[in-house]
């Protein structure tokens, strides 16, 4: 057999293996979407989006309060984690070298690995216990802690990707270091940082464990951030464990909605980046 044809055969085998791996990786995703959708479809109706849960024994009702609750929780989490995380990331990327920065980076990595239930207990200890009340703030705080390391490291990584030439260009014009960072480097990295933030949000939107003893749950319509608040994940957890068929169907619908929210956030992240990059580049 000639060398060339052998090479072609090996190349074909490698290609097929890659294709197989892609299919294998995609199967679970497609199955999850399909499974969740078929089970929850019957419960996905207008009531699901506009009504609060009905008492036990009554059919119908929806998850309107949980949908809004989840949005409130991730807003609180973002308000806490994004500013702190970005400033931290900027520090790590632009002022690295000191011992302090390596400690911060290490701390962020450790925090990233802390199980979410532990974060929940911690938030319970410092936000819930002192006021003796579950609240949306406590839940948002716990989610924020989960987001924080992701925001820190994404910001850092993306700032490092900004070409050194831009940094030097700003300094050469007489910009101080912090000025260069704020006016040139951060704006240049912003599209990527925003994606990172949206991905971090998508990640914490699907968390249940940190909410168990922070925001707890609330079967009623509530938007007060000092009160317990419903969330999609918690509601799914409660309904999925219930003995009622109707509730279990709603749990599937809730799960489907969660997947859709996360998918939408990911797509939004991509679109946002494309728009911002169009402004940044020709």
């Amino acid at each position, binding site marked *: 057999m000639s060398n060339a044809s052998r090479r072609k055969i090996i190349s074909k085998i490698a290609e097929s293996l890659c294709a197989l791996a892609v299919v294998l990786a995609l199967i679970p995703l497609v199955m999850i979407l399909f499974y969740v959708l078929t089970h929850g479809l019957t419960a996905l109706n207008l009531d699901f989006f506009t009504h609060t849960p009905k008492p036990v024994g009554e059919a119908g009702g929806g998850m309107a309060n949980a949908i809004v609750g989840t949005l409130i929780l991730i807003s609180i989490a973002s308000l806490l984690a994004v500013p702190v995380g970005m400033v931290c990331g900027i520090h790590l990327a632009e002022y690295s070298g000191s011992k302090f920065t390596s400690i911060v980076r290490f701390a962020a990595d450790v925090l990233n690995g802390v199980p979410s239930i532990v974060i929940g207990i911690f938030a319970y200890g410092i936000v819930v216990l002192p006021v003796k009340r579950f609240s949306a703030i406590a839940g948002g705080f716990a989610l924020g802690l989960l987001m924080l390391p992701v925001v820190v490291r994404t910001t850092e990584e993306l700032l490092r990707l900004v070409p050194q030439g831009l940094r*030097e260009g700003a*300094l050469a014009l007489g910009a101080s270091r912090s000025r260069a960072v704020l006016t040139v480097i951060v704006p*240049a990295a912003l599209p990527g940082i925003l994606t990172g933030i949206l991905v971090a949000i998508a990640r914490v939107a699907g968390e249940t464990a940190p909410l168990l003893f922070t925001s707890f749950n609330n079967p009623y319509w509530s938007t007060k951030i000092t009160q317990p608040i419903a969330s999609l994940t918690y509601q799914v957890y409660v309904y999925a464990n219930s003995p009622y068929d109707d509730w279990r169907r709603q749990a599937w619908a809730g799960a489907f909605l969660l997947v859709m929210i996360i998918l939408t956030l990911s797509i939004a992240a991509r679109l946002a980046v494309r728009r911002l990059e169009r402004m940044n580049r020709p």
Partner: protein
Amino acid sequence: MTTTIDMDLPTTAPAAAPPVVPDTKPPAQETPVKIHVRGFDFYYGTTKVLHGITLKIPERQVTALIGPSGCGKSTFIRSINRMNDIIPDAHGEGTVEIDGRDIYATGTDVVALRRRVGMVFQKSNPFPKSIYDNIAYGLRIGGMHNRRELDEVVEKSLVRAALWDEVKDRLHSSALALSGGQQQRVCIARALAVDPEILLMDEPASALDPIATTKIEELIWDLKVNYTIVIVTHNMQQAARVSDRTAFFMLGRLVEYSDTRTVFMNPREKMTEDYVTGRFG
């Protein structure tokens, strides 16, 4: 590649053989010294890359730095506006005086220094902003916010950088949409906008096509009326065309420094002659 250098020089002496030029060079012109470097060493960590550089760069002239890759000419030019400060573990020793003041003296305001000493880089580096905002950047951080003043300086700088006619209708579109040569002229205009006294150019045309290169070179000729220009170049013809004085660097040492014609036509050192005639490098 063999380098021919006789294209713009009036004599026709063959470069390969040491030309016998009568010693008629005029006594060194008494132009004031703008940059005076004395015994300057530079280290990356413990590696010494510049060895006791001493030279005087005259005011309002073009001084070219030539030499093979890695000879330290870029490191040297970046020492004149202390751009090397941002490299960790790098430091210089010796003095670099501008108008008689050592820029490495403690208490030097580096930000103020860099306003007086503009720099254009090898790779054009316009900010991902509009053309207008690129030019106005240095002015704005200097505290100028009056729209009319900004408009005026932006136009003046673009005119001086020979770019105004090409971009006047799209000042507010992204600078990154311009061609490579135009981007480099944006960078030059941006540096001129803050009205520096010295302009450092680190291979400003190395990434450009011949037409864009010609434009940059013509620009350098025009600019030396107002600015002291130091230019690093790999292109010997370019050095011969644009510069008044030429410094030849080799392995971190200044081998020869004289007026450009002497360096190219009648070099003192064998090494210089070999380099400018293309025998190595």
